[in-house]
Each structure stands twice: as C-alpha cells, then as structure tokens.
C-alpha cells in the first residue's frame, strides 16, 4: 500500500500498478474499511481499479494527521465485514441500430456478430469502478479477443443504455452522453435513479452478466 498526497485535499492510496482482480479486491476491502470508520473529515472516497482516492476537509484535519490515523487503524481491515457483492443480469439487444459499432468490432477482430455476442455474454464481469458519470460501471476483464481501440474522436452523443467496449473493458452508459467506446448493443435496464437510494444499481465489486435480449 502506497499513500501519497494529491492536491490540498486528496490522499491517493495505490494498491498496485495494473488491472488485476487481486489488486482490485484490496481496493474494495480498503474502501469498505474507510466507510466503516465513518470519519467526518472525509467527504468522498473514489475507489477504482488499483487505487482509492480519499477527499478530506482541510477545515477538519490535515494530510499528515489523517494519513497517520489511517495507518494506525489499518490493522482493522482484517476485522471488518465486507458486504457480499451483488450479481446483476443485464439484457442487451446486440447489433443493428442499438449496437452500431458491431460491424467495426467484427472487422477489427475478425469475429462474426454471433461470436462477438457469444464471447461478450460468456464472462461474468467485475465492477472495477463506478464513475466518470453517475452510475457508469467499468467492467472487466473483457476477453482478449474483443480488444478494440477507443474512438480517436469521441462521439458527441450515444443513447442511454448503450453498451460499449474499450481495450479490455466493457461498460454501460446510464445517460445519453458523449462516448469514446465502441457501442455493440443497448439495454433497457435502468442503471441510475436520482430519486431513490441506492442511486446507482452498481457498486464496486458487484458482478454483471450480459444476456442476449
């Protein structure tokens, strides 16, 4: 574990250098450990693939004091209950107007549309991070055969529910938004609801299975 400072109000904790399930599990444990401490001086925690970013209030503490206190409490990690991760089934309509980049993915990978769908639906994905926009799940690890580059120039708009691929990740856009990922399908599942908690159906560590609709 490597603690460093990021700006006046950030503490960045790194657990490794790559996208890896074991490293990610450490991030997840640490995230739930931080939540369990319920420290008032921490306003936000952003867990992701290999790091936790802690955002604290300078009015209430200092970097040095908070970092020291976290080191002191670190032994507690082994003793906290980590919530069970949920598994979500996401029905997707692949190809056609919903998955307008599937032809690109086919020509880039040399796979047929059916093979792409078969591979994409055969993996149970892990939610590595939720963010960039509200409720967007970064899912991995994508089968190497579906590796495609991002768009060089992102599209200004893709529809809500679009399912995309980028490098070894797949994800779902909860809102109509700009997008640089290759879109292979669309889901009607509601991923984010600002009117009720939990606002995002996905949480870090959850599992996701795609099903052909």
């Amino acid at each position, binding site marked *: 574990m490597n603690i460093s400072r990021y700006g006046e109000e950030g503490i960045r904790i790194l657990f490794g250098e790559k996208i890896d399930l074991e490293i990610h599990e450490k991030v997840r444990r640490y995230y739930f450990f931080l939540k369990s401490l319920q420290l008032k001086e921490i306003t936000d*925690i952003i867990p992701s693939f290999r790091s936790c970013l802690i955002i604290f209030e300078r009015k209430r503490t200092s970097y040095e004091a908070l970092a020291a206190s976290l080191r002191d409490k670190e032994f507690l990690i082994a003793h906290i209950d980590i919530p069970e991760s949920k598994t979500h089934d996401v029905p997707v309509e692949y190809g056609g107007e919903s998955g307008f980049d599937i032809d690109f993915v086919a020509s880039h990978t040399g796979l047929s549309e059916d093979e792409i769908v078969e591979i994409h639906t055969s993996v149970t994905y892990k939610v590595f991070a939720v963010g*960039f926009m*509200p409720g967007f799940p970064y899912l991995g690890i994508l089968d190497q055969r579906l590796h495609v580059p991002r768009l060089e120039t992102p599209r200004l708009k893709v529809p809500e529910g679009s399912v995309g691929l980028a490098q070894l990740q797949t994800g779902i856009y909860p809102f109509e938004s700009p997008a640089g990922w290759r879109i292979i399908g669309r889901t009607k599942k509601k991923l984010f609801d600002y009117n009720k908690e939990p606002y995002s159906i996905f949480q870090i560590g959850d599992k996701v299975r795609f099903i052909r609709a």
Partner: protein
Amino acid sequence: MIEIIHPGIMSIVVDGGRYGYREVGIPTSPALDLYALSSLNHLLGNEGNAPAIEAFGEKFSLRFVKDVCCAITGAKVRASLEGRPLQSWMSFTARAGEILTVDEVREGFRYYVGFSGSPVIEKIIGSYTTNLECRFGGYRGRALQKGDRIDLEDIRRVDVKRIAEDFIPRMTPPHTLRVVEGPENNYFTDESLAEFLGGRGRTAFTVSTKLNRTGIRLDGKPLAFRTDAEESIISEGLLPGSIQVPGDGLPIIQLHERTLGGYARPALIAKADHDLLAHLKPGDVVIFEMIGMEEAERLFDRKI
C-alpha cells in the same frame, strides 16, 4: 417569485455542491466561483452555500413578482433595475413588477444572482445544484429559459450592503494560476515541464473555445511526454482542478463534473485559485506558476 425574461447565454441554479456520492460517479457540480456565491449569500443574509443563479453572457433579465432584496456577484457587470444603474457586489431592493437586466459584463465571466429568500426547488441527492449532463437537480434538471418562474419563500428584508472593493477579486487576464504537483508529473520531459510551469512571461496558454462546466481546454505549445511514459493511465479518482493532458499534449483543466479520469496529470490548480477558473473565457491568456504544498495550504486556509 421571479420570472426569467432572458437567460443570458446560459443560466442555471447552483449551490455549494453535491457531496458524498463520488464513489458512484455523482459529481459535485458546485457554483464554479464559491467565493462569489458565499459573498452573495452574505449580502442577502442567507446561509453561505444557499442556491443562486449562475449565469454568463449579457442580456440576462428577470422580473420580480414580489418585493425582494437581490444582489449580483462574481463577474463585474453593469446592470439596471427599471433603467436605474446598478453595480455588482452590492445588494438592492426590488419591487414587484420591476425588471432587472444585465447590460454588460465588464470583468470576469460568470456572475451570480441571488435573493433574500429561499428558492422553492427540489433538493436532489442532497443539493439544489444542476447536473446539466444528466439532467437532474436545479430547475427541472436544465438551464433556465424564458418564462421560467421560481417561487421564493421566507423572504426577509435585509439592509442594503456592499462588499468593499478590497474584497472583490481581480478577474482580468492574463490569469496567473498557481498549481501544485500532480501525480503524473514524471510522465513529461523536464524541459517541457519547465516550460509549462515557466512562470511569468515565458510560456503562456490561451483559453480555447472548448470550454464548459466540465473542463477548459487550452491552446499553446503541447507538453512533451517522456519516451518511456504511457499517454494514458488506468482510470482513477480525479480531483477538481486537475490538469489532464491527453495524447495531443494540450492541457485540459478539469472542473467538477468528472469523478474518474484516464489522462496524465502533471499538476493541479491550487484550491486558492479555483474560483478564478469560473472567469476564464475564450482568448484569455493563462500562465501557470508552481508553488509548494505548504504555500498552497496557507493560501487556501487564509481563504476559508
């Protein structure tokens, strides 16, 4: 009650921000100039982060349906109430039926219009602020339009006050933005970093037209990546004010709408200068000046 007659180029309802949910990607979306927002609320006798209208562009205009105290802070504007000239950074009393118009923005970019009462709008995820991209919060999740009406409750009479000149920040370009070291400053060549952070009179960037509440793209001499450095990082938590540099080498100042980022961050804007970011407009010259963390803390603590 107030009624929007003209929204300027764009106006939205903002407050101090939406905190505690960045773990699921919900950004904070606060007023970009929080000092202007708290000064505004101070003038009006409201709690410091109470909601107000953030606007930019000229011709913003509204009609007062009830008697209320009002003020404008942020960018220095020339405004009028039924033809009577008004200054920003001072409160004034408006009578039912009167029309307020912002005639000219003289210095800065975004300005804040508030009232001595509470706008009746729905709180979403703990805040009144607008998330424009996802269309929630604020006034029906969108920018204000002609004819929109916002009811005000708990209207109080307050004495007319002004903020002393010494407490009104300077917003004229060139803007010197102080920065602290970012997590990926070693991704760039020493020469390039020295130029980027060269300070006064050396390397300057210009604010491009690609500017919104999510980020500010700058034009200028691209930063050079070291030959052994990747052009992107594994996406991770992003702090507002981070300077992100994509493959083309041109910096983007990230504001408050993104929680994760995947580009290298050579530096981030010191918190003490975040409010100034609200006033960068296309064509403005920007100069970066690196400071140490202790100085950044001192400057920020003096502000809060």
